[in-house]
């Protein structure tokens, strides 16, 4: 695959994140491994509660990790790091949040919301320079400079999300974690926000980690997809491969859940509900294995043979 000669920007290795409730341990993320290459859009897909947001938040250091490493450009960024490294990280990795209403400070003007990062690192020469930067950031997301003195509650959902994007972009990051950036938005403005994100990607060569539960959006937006189920990554593949050859039964049921705008197809569609208890889990413990270059699936040796047979059948049929 072409991925091999690409530069790895972020590498997550055997990541574990646990939450404790009265000493009772809950493993939200189990042994997650994946690489994100520079310049790509990597999507993390799964149902709610599967741990996808937790992975995103541990990369940006909001959640402490309990095991494993997160490497950014080869440097470990989880656990204890120095103040200097933390500063570099904040400038290089930014996040776009899910709920634009909740992620903006309601008591601060848009001017402050957007300049917050500039203030923290003093990324401006003087007051005029800061204002010019804020104006440019607002214009780049299609808002007007006159909005600076307004408060977040005066904006529509799509406008607020664009403020959220401007706030992240003004830091000039290399890597952006977008935590379901469009799921709280009206359908009519989803495309607008996605196109805006794509525009920034092209202009600045950004790398995205796109957390979502909506596969139809992910198909349009991302280069590679990781499917996560109950804290475990079950399949990683380039987008077209994943949609053509979904190997893991969970991936299969996720893809099935995407509605097709054709009543005839929808009527005859047989929904596969993924139920782990009904699966044949015999044999040794499954691990994430590479079945084709760039296509990983969570399986043991017995399952690998089944998947291999399935793949060859599909490939023969020229699907």
């Amino acid at each position, binding site marked *: 695959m072409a991925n091999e000669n690409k530069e790895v920007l972020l590498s997550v290795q055997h990541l574990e994140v646990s939450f404790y409730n009265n000493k009772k341990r809950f493993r939200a993320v189990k042994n997650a491994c994946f690489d994100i290459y520079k310049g790509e859009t990597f999507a993390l897909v799964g149902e709610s509660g599967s741990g996808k947001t937790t992975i995103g938040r541990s990369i940006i250091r909001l959640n402490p990790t309990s095991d494993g490493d997160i490497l950014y450009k080869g440097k470990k960024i989880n656990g204890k790091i120095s103040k200097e490294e933390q500063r570099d990280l904040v400038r290089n990795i930014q*996040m776009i949040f*899910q*709920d634009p209403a909740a992620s903006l400070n309601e008591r601060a003007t848009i001017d402050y919301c957007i300049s917050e990062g500039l203030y923290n*690192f003093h990324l401006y020469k003087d007051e005029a320079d800061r204002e010019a930067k804020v104006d440019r950031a607002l214009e780049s997301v299609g808002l007007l400079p006159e909005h600076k003195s307004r408060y977040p509650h*005066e904006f529509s959902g799509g406008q607020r999300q664009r403020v959220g994007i401007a706030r992240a972009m003004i830091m000039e990051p290399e890597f952006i974690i977008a935590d379901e950036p469009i799921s709280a938005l009206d359908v009519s403005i989803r495309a607008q926000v996605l196109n805006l994100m794509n525009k920034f990607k092209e202009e600045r060569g950004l790398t995205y980690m796109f957390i979502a539960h909506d596969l139809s959006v992910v198909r349009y937006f991302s280069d590679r997809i990781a499917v996560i189920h109950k804290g475990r990554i079950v399949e990683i593949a380039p987008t077209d491969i994943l949609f053509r050859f979904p190997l893991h039964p969970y991936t299969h049921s996720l893809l099935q859940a995407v509605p097709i705008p054709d009543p005839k197809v929808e009527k005859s569609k047989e929904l596969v509900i993924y139920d782990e208890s009904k699966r044949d889990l015999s044999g040794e413990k499954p691990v994430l294995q590479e079945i084709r270059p760039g296509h990983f699936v969570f399986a043991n040796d017995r399952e690998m043979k089944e998947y291999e047979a399935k793949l060859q059948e599909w490939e023969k049929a020229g699907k």
Partner: protein
Amino acid sequence: MTADNRFEFVKMDETASEHIAAPRYSYWRSVFRKFFSSKVVILMLVIALAITLFSFIQPLFSKFDPTVAQDILDRSKRFLPPSLEYPFGTDHVGTNMFDAVWASCGNSLSIALIATAITTVLGVIVGAFWGFSKKLDKIMIEVYNVVANIPFTLVVMVLMYVIGRGKWQLIFALSCTSWLSTAYFIRVQVMIIRDREYNLASKCLGTKTSTIISHNIMPYLISIIVTSIARDIPNFISYEVFLSFIGVGLDYREPSLGRMVQDYVGYMQTPSAAHLFWIPVCLCALISISLYIVGQALADASDPRTHMI
């Protein structure tokens, strides 16, 4: 003439949909507009301001001193009913009640105001960090559990016996016993908004904890702090009256509403001198009620949720 040249293309203005037509919102202007929208509140504000100003200005002219009773030997000046010369009458030693009441009121008010200021500043600062730091919480919650379960009166009484009676001692005792509950109150509010997403966003942008507290948390707490102040001032006035009444507050050298109530409680049933008791009681009630209503109205007005109609 065809239909085509009767129409012309109009350029679409992409930014038109981005304009906000609503008038510019200003937090403090909205607070004032909301606050002054009620006539009852304006009346109460006038009463509270009038009483406060008068009780601080009048004693400057009267130079009232409770230890001096220059008319004690003049029998004709005892128990005079209210008149032009003595608007509130005189008592058993010929004290001009008008001077005594305002000096007492000023003293009681200043105790309440100073104690409230100390309690609020200390409580808010400690409460903000207490709510934010899990390590501090572990210690503070134990301290709070112990201190909050000792009756307040007991602590004040012991303190007053140890450090002596007097105005500053009373302020110290009152502040000592109440800042912790204000801090606890603020801690709970901070914990509620601490983990909201916009604070996580600030963290992602590298904002320091102290800046998060001052820029993200405190603006949300304005109405809560104002509520706390509105509750504290009348409370402290009542505490002072109560403590002076049961004899652990101020001593005889300091005029105070509590001491007046205690001194004249015996005349409550005497028709000719009942006003000696009722005037300080009514004044105490009036100032508590007016301050409370003004405070509550300010607390309501400072909550932006009330600004939208």
